[in-house]
C-alpha cells in the first residue's frame, strides 16, 4: 500500500497522446534523401554499409541498411537528418478489423545485440505503456497474433523461430524489427547468421533502424492492426 501512494505522488511518466511537440530524444533521427549539387563534395563511401548513393540531383538513402553510425551527419556530409519515427513499411494488409482493439504479440530474440530488445522493453514500460493500446505480450505462441523478430536470425535460433511461427494460429503477421532482422545488418556476412527473418519466416511488416526507437515499433504495430492510434496525432518537432 505505501507504494501505491508513492506512485500517485509522482508525475505521470507516460507520453501523453496528442502533444504538440515530440519530446526530443524519443527518436535518434535518420538521414533522409537530400538534394546536393554536382559541386558539393560528397563521397558515398563515407557510409560503411553502402546505404548512401549519389543520384542525379541528390543523395539517396537506403533505410533498410542504415545503421545510425552518424558518419554522414552534418557537417561531415551534406546529408539532412530528420527527426521522425514513422519508419515501418507493410508488405501485407492489416489483420482483419476484429483485431483493431487488441492484439497479442510474441517476441523472439533471434540474435539481437540487446538494443532492439531494450527498445521493446521501453515500449512495455511506463513511458510508452503499450498495454493502453490493447497490445499484450503473449506468454505462448498459441495465443499470439503477431510475431516480433529481432536479430539477424542466428543458426542457433533458426529452429526456435520456425517452431514459434508454426505454433501461432492464423491469421498472423510477422514484424521484423531492426536492420538485423531485415537483412542481417552488420552481421549479414557472418557464417553463423541466416541474414534476416525473411529467410526463415514470411515477413509482413519491416521496421528499419539500429535500433528503431519505441515509437517506430509502435508504428509497425499500428500497420499490423490497421488501427489509427492516438500517437498519430503527435506532431513532429
Amino acid at each position, binding site marked *: 500500500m505505501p507504494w501505491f501512494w*508513492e506512485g500517485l505522488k509522482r508525475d505521470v511518466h507516460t507520453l501523453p497522446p496528442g502533444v504538440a511537440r515530440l519530446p526530443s530524444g524519443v527518436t535518434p533521427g535518420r538521414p533522409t534523401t537530400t538534394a546536393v549539387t554536382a559541386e558539393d563534395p560528397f563521397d558515398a563511401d563515407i557510409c560503411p554499409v553502402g546505404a548512401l548513393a549519389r543520384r542525379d540531383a541528390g543523395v539517396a538513402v537506403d533505410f533498410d541498411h542504415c545503421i545510425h553510425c552518424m558518419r554522414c551527419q552534418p557537417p561531415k556530409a551534406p546529408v539532412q537528418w530528420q527527426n521522425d519515427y514513422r519508419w515501418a513499411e507493410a508488405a501485407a494488409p492489416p489483420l482483419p478489423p476484429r483485431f483493431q482493439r487488441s492484439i497479442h504479440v510474441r517476441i523472439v*530474440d533471434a540474435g539481437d545485440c540487446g*538494443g532492439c530488445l531494450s527498445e521493446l522493453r*521501453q515500449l512495455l*514500460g511506463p*513511458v510508452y505503456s503499450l498495454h493502453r493500446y490493447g497490445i499484450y505480450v503473449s506468454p505462448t505462441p498459441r495465443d499470439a497474433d503477431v510475431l516480433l523478430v529481432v536479430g539477424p536470425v542466428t543458426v542457433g535460433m533458426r529452429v526456435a523461430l520456425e517452431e*514459434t511461427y508454426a505454433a501461432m494460429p492464423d491469421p498472423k503477421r510477422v514484424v521484423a524489427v531492426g536492420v538485423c532482422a531485415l537483412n542481417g545488418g552488420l*552481421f549479414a556476412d557472418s*557464417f553463423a547468421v541466416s541474414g534476416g527473418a525473411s529467410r526463415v519466416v514470411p515477413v509482413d511488416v519491416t521496421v528499419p533502424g539500429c535500433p528503431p526507437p519505441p515509437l517506430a515499433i509502435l508504428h509497425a504495430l499500428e500497420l499490423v492492426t490497421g488501427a489509427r492510434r492516438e500517437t498519430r496525432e503527435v506532431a513532429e518537432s
Partner: protein
Amino acid sequence: MNLTDAPRGGAPDAPPGGQPLHMVTTSTATLPDTVRRLMAEDRPLFIGLVVEHTGSRPPHLQYVWMGPEARWLLVDVAVDGTVVPSITPTVFAADWAEREAEDLFGVHFDGHPQLGDFILHDEDWAENLAPMKTRPEPPAHGGGRDPYEPPRIVQAPGRFVMPVGPVFSAAQESVRFLLETVGEEIMHAHVRLFYKYRGLEKLMERQAPDRAVLVAERVNGTQAFAHGLAFAQAVEALGAAVVPPRARTIRTALAEWERLRSHVATLAGIVESTGLSIPANLLAAVEEHLLQLSARYLGHRYLFGLVALGGLSRDPGDDALQALARAGVEAGGSVQAVCHRLTFDNSFLDRLEAVGMLPPARAATLGLVGPVGRASGAPADVRCWHPYAAYGKHLVTPVIESEGDGYARFRVFRREVAASVDLIQRCAAALPAGPVQTPVPVVPGVGLAAVEAPSGALAYWVRAGSAGQIDRCHIMAPAFLNWHGLADAVRDFAFQDFPIIVSTLGLSVADADR
C-alpha cells in the same frame, strides 16, 4: 598495451610484480606447473584465453590475467600437436574459455572435466568444424546431430530436468536453462548459452579497424560505448596513438553515463523480478529518460557511433556534457529515493537477503568480475587497476560489499549509480579544451586493452596485419565470465527465486554470445 615487442620472460618462476607486463613463455608440457606457480604467488584476475590457429600452423595460445597497478600476466604457450593440458583444475575460471577454444579451434584440452557441445550446438552444427581455424571461409552449418542432453549431475531418486527457454514470454534474451531438481529446489543449473552466437570474431577478421569498431559496439548494444572504447584502445595501443586530453575526459564521462543507464536498468530488473511493479516502473521511467537525454545530447539512445579510433567521432560540446551532468544528478536522486524506500520494504528484502549466495571464496574461484564480483568482496575494478581514458586523473574508489547475496549486489549497483553521477559531474566541470580525435596509424602487431564495462572487466585483444586489416580479434567479455557463476548462485534455492537471482546478476546474453 602493445604486445608486439613485449619482452618474453623465459623463466616461469620470476616474480611478476613490478613490471606492467609479465609474459611467460612456456611449452605444453610445463604449462600446468607454470600456472600453478604463478597462481600461488599472486592471485590475479583471469580474463581470457586467446587462440591463434590458422591453416596448418600449430595453435598458439595465450592465457591472459590482470593484476592491480596496471599489471598484465600472460602465459604464452607454443603448442606442438593439438593437445594441451587443461589448466581448469588449477584455474576454474578458465573452464569456459577452454571449452570455447576446443569448440571453435579444435584444440583439445587434456584433463578438462567437460568438453564438446558448447558454442556450436550439436543439433545445429556438424562435428569437428573448428570454424575459427578455417581460412578463408568457415564451413557452412548443418549437421543436425542428436539433441543436447546435459550431463547428469544430480544422482537422486525422482531427479528430473526442468527446461526454461530459449524463448521467453517477455522481451528477454534467448538462453536456455536446464534446472536439475527432485522437486522444489534447484540442485544444479546448466546454462546453455550461444543460441545467439553470431561469429563476430570471425566477422571482424579482414575488416578495417574503423569498420570493425561498429561491429564491436554491436557485440552488446546496451553497453556499446564500453565495447567500442575497449576495441579502440587496443588499436590505439598498437599505433602508439596519444588520445587528446579532451577526448579522454569525454570518454570517461560517457563511459560513466552508460554505466549509470545500465545500472538503472539492472536495478529496475531486480525490482521487477520481486514483483513490486510501482518502484520497478519508477526506475524504468528514469531509464527511458536517460535514453532520451542520450539521443538529445549525444545523437543516439545507446551511444552508437560515438567512439572513433583516436578519440571520438564528434565533440558533443561543453554545454551538452554539463547538461548531462545536471540531468544525471536529477536521475540519480530519483533512483536513490526509490532505492531508499525499498530498503524498508520487507517483501523486497526477504527476496534478496541471503538469496543467490556467492561467498567471497567461491567468487574468487569462479573469477567473477564487475559489480557481481565486487558484491562478493573481489576488489577488481579495471578503472582502478588499469586506469584508462581519464580515470588516472578522476580517481574511482571501488564499491565493495562482502556478503555475496542478492542484496549485496543490489547495494553495489545502487552505490555505483551514485559514484557514476559524481564522476560525470567531475568530468564535466574539468573539460580540457582541444581536439577530440587524433589520427591512428594501424601498425601490424598485437594490441591489448581493457575497460570496466558496466557489467565488469572487458578486454579486447587485436592482431593487425600489414595491410591495415584485422587478422584476429578476441573479445573477453564480462558476461562470459559471470554466467559461469550462475550455477553456484542458484544452487539449493527454490524455483521461485530463480528469476530473482538471475536479475541480481545483471548479465547480458549478447555479451557472452559474441
